[in-house]
């Protein structure tokens, strides 16, 4: 509650600064968090990747030796392949299923609220819960495979979760189950924003409904598709909990992923140099994939908006 200053010219500036001071102080926690926990920790991680750190950090310089070692580590190469396969199929699966769910729910169906609740509830649950449920449901001895065999298909086989070549796809199934409701919610919001005149116009022109969705509606809700894809991509890079709960990276190395490789090397195998090198590779990959989007969406100056 400052009163008006006595002599205007120089002290008005001072008063302005004094008024700004509490605001600047209020930003201090955020500034400290950004400087220490985000920028500081990131720089520290990158620095450690150029050292020979084992269990405790040392600050020597071994150049790119850890990176050389990393790319000669079978487990990391496997992890990279798995995350690529998982990422492509998971994002595509969620986008397609989420879009279909949104479109079908938008057909003036009955029980819309109930259906939406059913499609989105897995997203409220953790990847740990998701992984444990699917691990049980896909159990070859007592789960889905047994049920279908008992139904009279004794040769039915669905033991992917214990199959080295197929286990990654079970992660995709569980992931799509958990996350496609999110895509549905985002896309449904987009569909609801479309002018109903569009449907009158396309009906008069006798354009088939599916054509309208693919050629007109989809381009109109492209921003929603991009948003959903980015959120899913972030989830892919962070993929850790689901693997830990569902497969523990196995059988063998067949469902290892980079985030787990990093965690294991940092906190269990006392390979801080190698772990931070892998973290740096992950960081560079994420930034390379996301930077065009971050620039276009958030940092590019926008006309008519503040």
């Amino acid at each position, binding site marked *: *509650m400052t009163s008006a200053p006595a002599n205007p010219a120089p002290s008005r500036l001072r008063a302005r600064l004094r008024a700004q001071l509490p*605001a*600047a102080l*209020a*930003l201090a926690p*955020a500034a400290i*968090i*950004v400087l220490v*926990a*985000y920028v500081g*920790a990131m720089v*520290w*991680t990158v620095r450690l990747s150029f050292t020979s750190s084992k269990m405790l*950090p040392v600050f020597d310089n071994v150049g790119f030796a850890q990176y050389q070692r990393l790319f000669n580590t079978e487990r990391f190469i496997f992890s990279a392949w798995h995350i690529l396969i998982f990422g492509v199929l998971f994002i595509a699966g969620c986008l397609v299923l989420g879009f279909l*769910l949104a*479109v079908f729910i*938008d*057909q*003036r*169906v009955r029980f*819309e609220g109930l259906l939406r*609740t*059913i499609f989105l509830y897995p997203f*409220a*649950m*953790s990847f*740990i*819960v998701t992984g444990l*449920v*699917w691990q*049980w*449901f896909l159990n070859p*001895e007592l789960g889905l495979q047994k*049920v279908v065999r008992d139904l009279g298909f004794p040769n039915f086989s669905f033991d992917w979760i214990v199959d080295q070549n197929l286990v990654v796809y079970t992660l995709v199934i569980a992931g799509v189950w958990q996350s496609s*409701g999110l895509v549905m*919610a985002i896309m*449904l*919001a987009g569909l609801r924003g*479309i*002018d*109903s005149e569009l*449907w009158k116009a396309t009906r008069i022109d006798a354009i088939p409904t599916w054509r309208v969705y693919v050629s007109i509606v989809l381009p109109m809700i492209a*921003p929603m598709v991009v*948003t*959903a894809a980015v*959120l899913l991509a*972030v989830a892919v*890079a*962070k993929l850790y909990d689901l693997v830990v*709960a569902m497969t*523990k990276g196995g059988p063998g190395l067949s469902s290892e992923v980079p*985030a787990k490789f*990093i965690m294991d090397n940092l906190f269990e195998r006392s390979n801080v140099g190698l772990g931070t090198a892998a*973290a740096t590779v992950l*960081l560079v990959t*994420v*930034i390379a994939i996301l930077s065009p989007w*971050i620039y276009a*969406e*958030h940092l590019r100056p926008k006309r008519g908006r503040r």
Partner: protein
Amino acid sequence: MSLALTPAGPKPQHFSVARLGVYAFLAISAAFFLIPLWVMMMTSFKTMDEIRLGHILSLPANPTLAAWFKAWSSACTGLACNGISVGFWNSVRILVPSVIVSIFVGALTGYAMSFWRVRGANALFAVLLVGAFIPYQVFLYPLVRIFSMIGLYSSISGIVVIHVIFGLPLMTLLFRNYYSSLPVELFNAARVDGAGFVGIFRHVILPMSTPIIIVAAILQVTGIWNDFILGLTFAGRTNQPMTVLLNNIVNSTQGEVEYNVNMAATVLTALVPLTVYLVSGRWFVRGIAAGAVKG
């Protein structure tokens, strides 16, 4: 982003094969989404003898709550047999302060960023936003070092600070965007009346923040309850949150696997976010939309 109540899709004709197809697709999808929940619930009410028969989809012949009691109070992690209740209370002790502090810091930061043109605030926001997209693994090791240096490692306060740190981007985004949508005249009028930074926040801004605080609380309660990696890394053995304990119980390799106890423990862990989801309804979707859509 608004969620209109009425469907915008094409108007359906009365009955047609296409209409049947729409419902068939929705029904099959609903089954796909519901079956894991069904399996989880049914298994938790069965006895192990019944589970060994392998009818994973069937109703329990003799429903029993025995697995639930065991999961809650005496399931084993391989180290101890105190059940998942330990984790439940740990999660509560982590959740309450984390949600309150992270929302408060987010509201304060968003308020200072939107109404007060502090120099460097936009740059701060940009870094924060980029930080939200980077996997935790990039920050975790140095943070563990820092936290053990200042004595916060493996303590409740430590994990609370961690949740505040990693919740800050989303919380700031929510509050900054919400405050930017409020009429600036309101703020100017309060300035003219001589109110300062704290006064305006307390008497003008906070009373108008209820909707966004609800959205933030829903996001943080589900997010922090569902967290695994941060609790695993920072909470320490004695404070393990429910997700970590659940994983230890289910994936512990000692003795015979008790699927009914495992599933009961899983349901118990999912109960809090599921309740939040079912009670909050549209607010949950609003939260997703607010968090997902550009600023």
